[in-house]
């Protein structure tokens, strides 16, 4: 992530969370936090606890973040780069703030006819391939909750559509035939099938490395009838180090009500 990308991300983040941007500069920004964001980012639970007990007027902090060479005229400010703990804290907070959604396709209707919006369930997922090494893959799937049709790269397709939080005028939603929980299971089944078809030489290689180390360990204790406790500790450690695992996590997702043909 380049510095200007970080800058842009932060601006969008604070605006989306309804904070006032008090100073705007290509190289820094000063943000008046809301109460919610102060609680989330500033790590001062005692203050908020005290305030709630006494009923005082909340006074959320302001935050100055620097992303470029120039610092604000009044000095100070936290320098934010890709590794800085503050950015990672903000990244982590987006997971709390942006996990569950429901949106409608924004349709402007002139004919006066009512339009049906079809229910889709979308999930964005992270698949981690892990042994003593690790790789992630992000994917996105949508399932039509009436027909059961599944669509890959669903999020990218959504990004090209006008979406709104309120159901547009002259539109109505169709009720799903497939329950969302079943939809999630069907997506899981598809993901699992796709994973099984992947190339897994990485896992084979990890097992070879694992076996090699285990053979060494066995050789080290080959003369001992009664293996010491340490042998078992080490053997277990080798398992946790090398054993190939695939973890699938959902990043976020939700319901999208879309017109009939938009995903075809």
């Amino acid at each position, binding site marked *: 992530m380049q510095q200007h990308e970080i800058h842009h991300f932060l601006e969008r983040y604070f605006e989306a969370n309804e904070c006032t941007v008090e100073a705007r500069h290509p190289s820094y920004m000063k943000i008046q936090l809301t109460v919610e964001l102060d609680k989330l980012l500033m790590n001062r639970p005692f203050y908020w606890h005290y305030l709630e007990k006494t009923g005082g007027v909340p006074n959320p902090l302001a935050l100055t973040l620097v992303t470029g060479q120039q610092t604000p005229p009044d000095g100070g400010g936290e320098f934010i780069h890709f*590794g800085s703990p503050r950015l990672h804290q903000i990244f982590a907070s987006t997971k709390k703030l*942006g996990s569950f959604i429901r949106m409608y396709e924004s349709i402007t209707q002139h004919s006066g006819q009512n339009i049906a919006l079809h229910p889709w369930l979308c999930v964005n997922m992270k698949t981690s391939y892990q042994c003593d090494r690790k790789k992630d893959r992000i994917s996105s799937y949508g399932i039509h909750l009436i027909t059961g049709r599944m669509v890959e790269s669903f999020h990218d397709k959504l990004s090209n559509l006008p979406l709104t939080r309120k159901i547009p005028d002259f539109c109505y939603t169709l009720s799903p035939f497939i329950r969302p929980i079943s939809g999630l299971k069907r997506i899981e089944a598809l993901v699992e099938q796709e994973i099984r078809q992947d190339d897994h030489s990485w896992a084979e290689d990890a097992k070879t490395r694992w076996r090699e180390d285990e053979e060494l360990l066995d050789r080290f204790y080959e003369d001992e009838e009664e293996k010491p406790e340490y042998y078992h500790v080490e053997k277990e450690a080798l398992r946790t180090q090398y054993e190939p695992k695939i973890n699938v996590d959902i990043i*976020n997702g939700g319901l999208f009500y879309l017109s009939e043909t938009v995903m075809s």
Partner: protein
Amino acid sequence: MNLNINFNREWHDEFIKRMDDDGPWTKWELYNLALEAEKNLSIPDFLGLQAPGHLPQLTFLPHQLEVAKTVIEKMNGKAILADEVGLGKTIEAGLILKEYMIRGLAKKVLILVPASLVLQWTGELNSKFFIPAVAQKKSYVWEQCEVVVSSIDTAKRQPHRDIVLNQDYDIIVIDEAHKLKNKNTKNYEFVQHLKKKFCLLLTATPVQNRVEEIFNLVSLLKPGHLGNQENFDKDFRNDKHSLKNEEKLKQLVNKVMVRNRREETGLKWPKRFVKTIPITLSETERNLYSSISDLKELPQFSRSKFSVLTLQREVCSSREACFMTLKNMLQKDPNSEHTIVPIMKKIEEVTQNSKAMKTLELVQSINDKVIIFTEYRATQLYLQWYLQQHGISSVPFRGGFKRSKKDYMTHLFKNHAQVLIATEAGGEGINLQFCQHIINYDLPWNPMRIEQRIGRIHRIGQKGDVHIYNFATENTIEERILNLLYNKINLFESVIGELDEILAKFELKNIETYISDIMLNSESEGEMKVKMDNLASLINLGGGIKKKGWEEHATARDSSFS
């Protein structure tokens, strides 16, 4: 193939709940930000390093990046990091640790370092690597904090021991790991029982003088890599000290050890300029030296010739240093009054310190930061007083100082004083690379200690050339040791790593005693010369001390004694 796939379904329950409650639902922009954040944090490939992108304020040297890649991709995260002093082993360890943490392969981390370095490690991991390391102070820290720095002596003691051995660590880092070469120690046994996935052992001196030491160290890291004790002995051991199939052993060891040498890193090291400065004793000083040298002939000194040698060396330093020793001798043995008191009288007659005068002259002409090394506390105090008399401020430095005091003195030297007067190299982790001049006011008889002195300023981060001034008092043992040994082995132009190995190889660990022995027990100047020559050629033969990179400066050496 049989794959272990795990779906995390935590999200499902919360989603169903929000369906039932009809919200709350997030905004489209926040939804997108959450996905973008995750995309930025995801690891695109099994190979390669992510950490440098997270640490834009650090500049890694090419060999450091290479080490990190090798350890992770070729050694599967179990390695002995054995770069020569000053190449940045700590940085390499931090980089590897950071990489594993970014990849989510390490959460629970234990870092075992010498007690004096706990705070430094904790500080550097936090400030340079943004790794939230915590120095172990209370016993709850073991369980509640993810990255803990501690001394091995604390960790292995109860009540800590049981708690620590119960943790499942992802990575264990051990600094100064050569202290674990003996498998019959409590430390070794403790480390052996730790539960660990990845492990980094840091040491500057991996090659030891006993064959089983390398076996023990590797077996701690990767048991069986060198076989078990029995087949290791069969395959590689000749006798107690020597090896067979050395090439094969080396190959095996290199699979778990990375070792960069200064000359191989391709780094532009600062140049070393070495100058020997002859000191001529004044008449009274010469009288004193002669009368001490004569003591050797006295029968009551026949069994403590060593103390005569010490006195001789002290006279070359300062009359104060000499006086302290004489006073102690007198206290121990009041009968020696008739020999010692006349010498004390001679000390009183000395009116000047020729070496100190030369020091003053040199410090004034350098007109920049200077470190003066002396062997004696009394000389240190005297020099500080003497320089003060001439308007030069200095700070003292001793090995016995606490860590915080060392840091404070370094700070004072950097910002407020021209001169630092040290009796010892200052120990591990003291960096004085903002200074470019060293005066070896008197010389230790252990070449390692000289290299440690120079190593404090001749290291990465030194921007300019390094100037080394060796004082040699004419017609004394000081001059003799310089000419007979140090100049023959190119000591001042070479580097410690190799010397270290050579001395270990020949079991010359106690080289100081060995040299004293030559000095004392040689019947004649000729015999002494021959013995010293032998020592020098032994060192040069044992792989020699190469002086690559510095050849062109060898001429810069003063040749007034050759």
